[in-house]
């Protein structure tokens, strides 16, 4: 291998290592991490918003063909600004997606499994949620909302 080629490979390795280092720092240092395996939550069949403290909530979401049960059949919930929400998500039938716009909450809802993310709503407004995994003929209508006041 000649010199130019060796330099190119070193440069490529260096660049990739730098990027990967930043990712690990963001994940483990800044705690911007991916969903992991949850074993301590029993599967649930109805959506529920539970308040634990003035700004602490637990949101159980059931995705089903073709709506999100966010709270006892409702497809939207209201939260005060600044709330920290633990979101638990499952599916009652097929695979669905769950993406809250303007946040890092992007989860797959898979039947038989509970997914989890924590999010803090600092800014007031309407947060749109769409199902972004094909789940049958009603998929394009499967949306929900979080109103932060």
């Amino acid at each position, binding site marked *: 291998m000649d010199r130019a080629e060796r330099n190119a490979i070193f440069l490529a390795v260096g660049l990739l290592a730098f990027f990967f280092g930043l990712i690990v720092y963001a994940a483990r240092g800044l705690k911007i991490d991916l969903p992991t395996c949850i074993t301590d939550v029993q599967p649930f069949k109805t959506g529920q918003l539970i308040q634990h403290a003035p700004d602490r909530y637990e949101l159980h979401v059931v995705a089903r063909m073709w709506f999100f049960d966010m709270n006892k059949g409702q497809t939207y919930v209201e939260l005060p600004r600044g709330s920290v929400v633990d979101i638990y998500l499952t599916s009652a039938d097929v695979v669905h997606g769950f993406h809250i716009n303007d946040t890092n909450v992007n989860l797959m809802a898979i039947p038989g499994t509970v997914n989890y993310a924590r999010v803090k709503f600092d800014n007031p407004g309407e947060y749109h949620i769409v199902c*972004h995994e094909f789940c*049958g003929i009603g998929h394009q209508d499967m949306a929900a909302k979080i109103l932060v006041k």
Partner: protein
Amino acid sequence: MSAGIRFILISEIVIPILLLIFGVYHGVLQVLYRAGIINASSVLGIDYYQGLTLHGVINVIVFTTIFIVAFGNGIVLYLLKKPLRGWSQWTSWVLMIGGTLMSAWAMFTGKANVLYTFYPPLIAHWTFYFGLVLLVVGSLVPFFFDWIPNYIAWKRENPDKKMPLAVFGIFVNHILWLIMVVPVAVELIFQLIPLSLGIVTDINPLLARTLFWFFGHPVVYFWLLPAYVMLYTMLPKLISPKGKLYSDTAARLAFILFLMFSLPVGLHHQFTDPGISNSWKLIHAFFTFLVALPSMVTAFTVAASMEYSAKQEGGKGVFYWWTKLPYIRLEGDKWLFSYLFAGLVLFFIGGITGIVNASYNVNLTVHNTAYVPGHFHTTVGGLSVLAFLGMSLYMLSKLKGTEVKFKGLATLAPYIWTQGMFMFSYAMMVGGALEGFPRRTNTGLSYLNPDSPLYRPEWVGYAQLSVVGGFLLALAFVFFLISFFGTLFSSRQRNIELEYPIAEPLHDSPAPVLNNLKAWTVASVILAVLSYIPALYDTTQRGIFYNSPAYNDKSPVPIKPIKSSGLKKEEVKN
């Protein structure tokens, strides 16, 4: 070449292109539906999601696989100079075409609206899955019964020669294919087909997804490596008759790195899935970064080969040699350069945007948004498809014994395609990453319908730009088709000789370690298995509470109520 083999090769090129006509037609419909210009759930009896299933399956499973077999057959035939066996080729042909027809029947009759990833518990008619299995089996037959025996015979006659580089790339690609189809075959044979036939009543959907992506990432390299073979071995020769590949060793190193690191990466498609520990996801993200390395090595080697070859044509200096590349040239086979070059330009974007998807937590901002199709239309819809279209036309002209017809249109097509893809992918990627524009959705019915309560005006501009891109893509494809069918229906002008413009290397070394394919294959399997044991364990043990029955896309009620896991469900207190 016997008439039978010639018929097989020509039909393995023509049939995928015929199917691709439907694939591209529905691609154009998709951008129209998504922008709300078509405000309906179906057109001409084909539902949006049914058409999207066809678009995905035809474009990236059927078209690619059959073409790759035809290309491999051609390369092995030309470089090893040994005849292909009629019985093996016919077996492969019948399995691939029969399997395709079976799956196509299920999709066209609406019995398989499950998209090309076929995630259960949505379930298709069993013929859909069975057809795919036949297609895959058929694609492996020539590897075992023609390519390997022919290589062994060639090696006996040429004991001190290395395996020719193009054959090396083709072999690495099919070894990779052989390994990656095992997990998806397990999913199809032990989970989906039994569930579809009603032999079992429920399955574990997360396990199915994990098995699918064990196959689903490496398959993108299966589409890419044949294009790399063309870039390494043919691109220099198209630039100049004295053109050379910069380094044979670097090319082989890149292929071996792909063989090693394409497999332990599939969890990067499941970053947002539950039930799998995120430490395993991080390890797969690490290997994903490693597998970016051979593409970077390729970028260097291909650029260096282009520079060397352009300088043989009188190109000078640091930049001026760029003007000596045959961008739009009609003499001989030089038109093929435009396909590979345009593909390279798109792949440059595809590579960079792929690093974004692969970046673990950054994936949260793009997962399942339109960003993802925006990205992969510049990879598989860019370099792979352009290289395959160009090579299809090239091989067709050689097999017909004629010059390419309407060469001008054929030469312009890849540039128009690239321009269309720039606009399409820009719209999809930016709309997806910044505004959350979703993929896999007939948005025209809801989010892009001003009369709907779900209307999202911020997505309109992106959807409309993707329509403009889609039309340019269609125009490029029509140019290509005119040339392709013009060539197909023209009469013979010269001897039928299937030959390829293969360049010699500038730098070369024996590199016996790199050439030991058997050892690398074993190492690759071991690494893949090790990297998947923890994730597969997670999907079957932790975080999973019960299995799922099958559903079809039309009803929220399971096709058949569950028996076996009904018990388990009762146990769970609600």
